[in-house]
């Protein structure tokens, strides 16, 4: 396997997965031996949440599977910025076929491995929200209902960023995109549209569904590793801010993702066999305006005058999430958020 030395830059106690902790509590990202699945030199934008999320998630899966992983990628930013011919940033076995078929291609890889008696090798499918919730939905649902042994990861940046920020089925209400411009009486994306794929995944009663963000590295790594404890179809939905499409500062990617969860707009939870088993409580609740103000895609909600009626509807959506997933309940069951010890990550396969 090609090996590239990993460089760490110590910029504070939160850097590189908190290496000031004792070794068994450190995150995968803090380990010099991590697989570095998506190595440096790729062409993602500054502050790209997807590049970060993909590396966190796949490194965690690589550790959980002891390096026995094959990744299947949908067309999109992640594919384009990582493999400009003749270069590749992937240090794992990796296949890209089309935009809408990554879950089915991953099913095919899993079937081949089963046929060859190599079920020790695990398969991850991955794509952006366009490739997952829109054009890839049929293949994703098919993969779910057949129970194919695939972890599918959606890196959700809430629009078609690769083609120039057009609306997807995951674009939130009021957000400006190139096809939902901030003009007229109802500027930005329409309210009452879009779909919640984590809940759709749960409706398939697959063994494991979880959401995560790049703001909570330990939780993300835990969920990617936890997903590998199960056989069958699993789904991980990761919120990955896109500075280009959201109009946020590249340096604020983690902060914006954190505000998305702390406002209640993006609930972080996990579900087994169709039932929610844990939700990450909000530590410091913030009004949605704290989140919206960080992004130019919501600028029309504040300029020239604050559109209080529209902001109230966004706040209502956040309040509904908080009530629905119990995000403000006392965090009695939050113990599992403690980083998974290495032993846990090692027993890949079998429940």
């Amino acid at each position, binding site marked *: 396997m090609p090996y590239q030395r990993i460089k760490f830059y110590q910029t504070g106690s939160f850097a590189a997965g908190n290496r000031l902790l004792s070794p068994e509590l450190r995150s995968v990202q803090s380990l010099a031996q991590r697989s570095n699945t998506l190595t440096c030199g790729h062409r993602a934008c500054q502050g790209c949440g997807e590049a970060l999320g993909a590396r966190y998630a796949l490194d965690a899966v690589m550790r959980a599977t002891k390096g026995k992983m094959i990744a299947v990628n949908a067309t999109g930013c992640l594919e384009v910025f990582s493999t400009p011919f003749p270069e590749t940033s992937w240090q794992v*076995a990796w*296949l890209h076929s089309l935009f809408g078929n990554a879950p089915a*291609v991953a099913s*095919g890889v899993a079937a081949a491995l089963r046929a060859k008696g190599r079920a020790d090798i695990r398969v991850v499918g991955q794509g952006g929200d366009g490739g997952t919730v829109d054009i890839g939905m049929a293949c994703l649902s098919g993969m779910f209902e057949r129970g194919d042994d695939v972890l599918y990861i959606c890196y959700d940046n809430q629009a078609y960023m690769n083609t120039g920020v057009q609306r997807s089925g995951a674009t939130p209400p009021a957000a400006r995109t190139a096809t939902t411009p901030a003009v007229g009486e109802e500027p930005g994306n329409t309210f009452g549209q879009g779909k919640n794929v984590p809940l759709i995944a749960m409706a398939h009663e697959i063994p494991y569904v979880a959401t995560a963000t790049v703001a909570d590295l330990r939780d993300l790594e835990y969920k990617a590793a936890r997903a590998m404890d199960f056989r069958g179809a699993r789904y991980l939905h990761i919120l990955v801010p896109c500075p280009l499409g959201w109009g946020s500062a590249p340096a604020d990617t983690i902060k914006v993702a954190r505000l998305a969860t702390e406002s209640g707009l993006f609930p972080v939870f996990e579900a087994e066999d169709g039932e929610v088993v844990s939700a990450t409580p909000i530590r410091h609740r913030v009004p949605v305006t704290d989140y919206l103000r960080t992004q130019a895609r919501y600028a029309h909600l504040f300029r020239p005058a604050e559109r209080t009626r529209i902001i109230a509807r966004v706040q209502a959506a956040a309040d509904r999430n908080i009530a629905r997933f119990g995000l403000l309940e006392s965090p009695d069951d939050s113990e599992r958020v403690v980083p998974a010890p290495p032993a846990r990550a090692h027993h890949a396969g079998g429940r």
Partner: protein
Amino acid sequence: MLRQIEGSQAVAAAVAMCRPEVICAYPITPQTHIVEALGAKVKKGELNAEFLNVESEFAAMSVAIGASAAGARAYTATASQGLLYMSEAVYNAAGLGLPIVMTVANRAIGAPINIWNDHSDAMSQRDAGWIQLYAETSQEALDLHIQAFKIAEELANPVMVCMDGFLLTHASERADIPAQDQVDRFLPPYVPRQMLDPADPVSIGAMVGPEAFTEVRYLAQARMQQALEVIPSAAAGFSMAFGRSSGGLVRPYLTGDAEIIVVALGSVLGTVKDTVDELRAEGMRIGVLGITTFRPFPVLAVREALGTDSRLRRIVVLERALAPGTDGIVTADIRMALAASDGRPPRAPDALVSTVVAGLGGRAITRKSLRAMLADTVSGRLGPLTFLDLDTSLVSRELDRMRAARRSGPSAENMLRDLGITASRVS
């Protein structure tokens, strides 16, 4: 072993003996019997393969892509709308150089929706980069599948085996079913050039820009050139191993002294040859050129077959698909073969090419119709483009209506009303 067997069952038996490791299935008439039979074999434990019931043809080809890239021998079957629905993945499989074998049980494309046989489906994918083989009989369909895996894996290029829907898939014919050990000797296990393997990780399917895209496409063309040698060699090897001749590039029949040669693909060749036999007995010098390999198009073999005698006056191309706005897909390729594409002067400069569109959407191509058409050819009455057995009064009534009122919309329903087989307008 000789058996009276349905074409689909014969093909399923052959595919099973090729030991596919992953089979993906999505139902579409008239291909269903093949995957049903394979599914049963897997379920009974007679065939050790993964059988996936997928949610669409697009998924079927995508699963085959993943399986093949992971080093498994992959197979699927489809037809008609299904082939079009998976089209994006069909091109992708070829671009990735994956040796997938797919049966296409040829069927018309709608609208109007039609489940019966013609070649519109496979012809629509002629430039997808797949090798296309057309079977004349059930026996040949069976044989071509065994050859297809060998050709595909030798070239790292997918192969489509086209067999006429219903006419071959559902007809019961005598077929010689080979023994498993014969197939095993002929077809070695699949050894991929490059595959997904965590122990030796590679990136497959990277983005290629202007700096190398042309070169990648050039290599696709080079593979097709190579296929023109690999396909006859597979056919020759098959003949040695199984004792019968199947496949190859083209099948000339009595072309040596022919004044008229009929060019066709698929199961209609049987009827054409029977008709030609009758007409030869009446003194007409007519021959037949069957095209088994349509992609890559065997230009030199076609030239060789068409250009052996200066007495050739007319080439009649039977088109089993309509390419609206042109005179025919096969016709265009025949003209290309006749032209000096290899730098040599045309071999049959005086021969005129006529297109006969026939057997669309399952309309039977009868000996009677072929006799009448060939009689017209002999007497010089056959025009450049003819629709065999066209109901001219039916279309002229609709043409009159179209001239009378400028309106958009489908015409099939209007014509059905003329035929009196649909409810009249409710007023």
